[in-house]
């Protein structure tokens, strides 16, 4: 039987096992929405802005092993989605975005709600397609899912013109897909693996540096075994948190601009660095030439050959899927007779112990004013470290990363690469749908939350009892911090005048709002919020406006130029 292109599109999603589609209807996708209406396998979540649809699909994908799916209309539907797509692209999140397009005959005529979707999204997708024949819809969607989740994952966009969604064809969803020009390497070169194993065992001051690739490849378990087997210190980037248990004694914290002293000095002073699914980002290693000024051997595991020696030259490249390669490396380590140099390790751990002893995350708590770090610590305690935590971007994001200790992968959901304010709330919606029984907290600030606050309405419609913890310091805190340090205290436009009453705002959307002004009330408020199982609770914490994030490696500086709170 022949189906319309719209029906085929929805059938493809069903056959891919898609549970949720996050979207917003419009002219060019009316027929697709009609096909969606006539079935109940794929559930649609109506957001209030297309950016949120993509972030929600993204949060869903990050917290599961599945591909997130978003559906948007042509023109402004797509341009609104671009921020979300770029966010997913920078963090390599598997996602399929289906967009409507004006009818093929109207393309290029500046039709109503027409944009060059393939052109606009090209630099921020793994790949994109414009479907020009209804017969190609099924094979294109199959390819899109395959590309999104294989190799280095990423968002893939499929643009479907309205007339193609109306035209009819036989439906046949391909079982297999093969693309002759696309064959990601999964297993690393055996000689290089052996070389890496020998190098690791000869290390005197080793560090294992893990990134988002560990999470994406579901490699947390084999990685943990590898690290424990060697007994080497481990650090995780902002994207990698939870890939190795943070409460473990081998864990030194997060390296980078707001990383711990021991993680940063460990990275800087090690003699052998094993990078696992991490990409030597500027926010992690700081100044490249400063980083390179210390001789060290680098082993780099990454599925993307283009990540190898992009910013820092590496000595042993292990191109392949992180999970596979870590397992292969583990096997190789067992076959090498050599054992780690115990005396050197003892010295190295002694040095690390000294750095650790300086307790770089210490902060001065107060009984007068709420310290933002304290809120995150209390959240960690009350949720027993088991919540899914999303964040927006800024100071609160760094405090969340520093003070919530993630022992499991896929629990920490944030926009690391693109740094997208407005990400946290919609991402939390995707997480909550994927894990309805789990506690989902969104740590945000009064600046970020207002970038997608309309999603409180979506949360009401779909009964998503997310707990929003807004660290409200009445400033765009990270901007203010940089202005204080590097711009002579000139707070250009970083002050948020005329803030709404967030409690009333939450109530207006049909949720519960709690304002917390006194440090003594923090714990009670969080407990109450989580006790309200079926309600979204918006906690407006009035935090210390002068608090800064420490430690800090100033932009363009080296890791050993780290500034501690005690230095000021």
């Amino acid at each position: 039987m022949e189906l319309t292109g719209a029906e085929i599109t929805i059938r493809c999603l069903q056959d891919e096992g898609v549970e949720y589609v996050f979207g917003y209807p419009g002219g060019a996708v009316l027929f697709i929405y009609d096909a969606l209406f006539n079935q109940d396998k794929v559930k649609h979540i109506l957001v209030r802005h297309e950016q949120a649809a993509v972030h929600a699909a993204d949060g869903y994908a990050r917290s599961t092993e599945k591909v997130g799916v978003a559906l948007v209309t042509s023109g402004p539907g797509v341009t609104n989605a671009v921020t979300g797509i770029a966010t997913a692209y920078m963090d390599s999140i598997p996602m399929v975005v289906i967009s409507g397009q004006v009818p093929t005959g109207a393309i290029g005529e500046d039709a109503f709600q027409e944009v060059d979707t393939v052109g606009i999204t090209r630099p921020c997708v793994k790949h994109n397609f414009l479907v020009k024949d209804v017969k190609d819809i099924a094979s294109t969607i199959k390819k899109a899912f395959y590309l999104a989740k294989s190799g280095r994952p990423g968002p893939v966009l499929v643009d479907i013109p309205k007339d193609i969604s109306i035209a009819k064809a036989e439906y046949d969803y391909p079982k297999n897909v093969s693309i002759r020009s696309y064959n990601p390497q999964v297993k690393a070169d055996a000689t290089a693996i052996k070389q890496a194993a020998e190098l690791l065992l000869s290390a005197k001051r080793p560090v294992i540096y893990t990134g988002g690739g560990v999470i994406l490849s579901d490699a947390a378990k084999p990685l943990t075994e590898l690290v424990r087997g060697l007994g080497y210190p481990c650090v995780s980037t902002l994207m990698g948190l939870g890939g190795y248990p943070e409460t473990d004694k081998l864990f030194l914290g997060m390296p980078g601009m707001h990383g711990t002293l021991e993680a940063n000095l460990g990275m800087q002073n090690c003699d052998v660095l094993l990078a696992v699914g991490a990409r030597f980002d500027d926010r992690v290693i700081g100044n490249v030439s400063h980083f390179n000024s210390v001789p060290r051997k680098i082993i780099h595991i990454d599925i993307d050959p283009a990540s190898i020696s992009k910013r820092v030259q590496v000595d042993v490249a292990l191109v392949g899927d992180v999970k596979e390669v870590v397992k292969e490396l583990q096997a190789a380590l067992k076959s090498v007779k050599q054992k780690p140099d115990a005396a050197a390790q003892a010295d190295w751990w002694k040095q690390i112990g000294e750095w650790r002893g300086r307790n770089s995350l210490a902060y001065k708590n107060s009984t007068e004013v709420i310290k933002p770090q304290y809120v995150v610590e209390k959240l960690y305690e009350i949720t027993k470290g088991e919540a899914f935590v999303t964040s927006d971007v800024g100071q609160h994001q760094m405090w969340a990363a520093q003070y919530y200790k993630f022992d499991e992968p896929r629990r920490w959901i944030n926009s690391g690469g693109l740094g997208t304010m407005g990400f946290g709330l919609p991402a939390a919606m995707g997480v909550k749908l994927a894990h309805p029984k789990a506690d989902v907290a969104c740590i945000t600030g009064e600046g970020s939350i207002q970038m997608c606050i309309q999603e409180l309405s979506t949360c009401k419609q779909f009964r998503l009892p997310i707990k929003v913890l807004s660290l409200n310091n009445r400033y765009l805190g990270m901007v203010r911090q940089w202005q204080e340090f590097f711009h002579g205290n000139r707070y250009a436009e970083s002050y948020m005048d005329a803030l709404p009453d967030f409690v009333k705002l939450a109530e207006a959307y049909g949720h519960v709002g709690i304002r917390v002004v006194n440090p003594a009330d923090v714990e009670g408020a969080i407990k109450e919020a989580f006790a309200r199982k079926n309600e979204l609770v918006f906690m407006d914490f009035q935090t210390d406006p002068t608090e800064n994030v420490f430690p800090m490696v100033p932009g363009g500086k080296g890791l050993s130029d780290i500034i501690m709170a005690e230095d000021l």
Partner: protein
Amino acid sequence: MRHIISLLMENEAGALSRVAGLFSARGYNIESLTVATTEDPTMSRMTIVTSGSDDVIEQINKQLNKLIEVVQVMDLTEGEHIERELMLVKVKAEGAAREEMKRMADIFRGRIIDVTDATYTIELTGSGTKLDNFLQAIDRSLILETVRTGASGIGRGKRILKL
């Protein structure tokens, strides 16, 4: 250093803009870029002349390989290769200059492919340097118009770029 990168890619709409977009987005140089369908109509072959440090060229190769529609990439300058470019030059050819222009075209093994009372159009192939040299050798004031294809390249002997 100057590099000539050859690649095979799917002959699909938009594939060229992915390559061009990659170069502009990442700030790589393009000296010239030529593309045409191969004997296999599903595949196009592109020759890109670029320049950069070894690190940059390595990244260019990797980033090109990463494009989904790119089937194979070869840096021709890493081995023995042949490079050719085609140029058409329209020149003033009147009076004494007419004979001189014919002589110069012969010296450079060019062919005059269009003749009018007042002009010649000369077809010249060779390396980019040879074409530059021709333009320098003739009287510049006689040049009316030039058009160049940019370099195409091929590996020597057994160096073959084919699926």
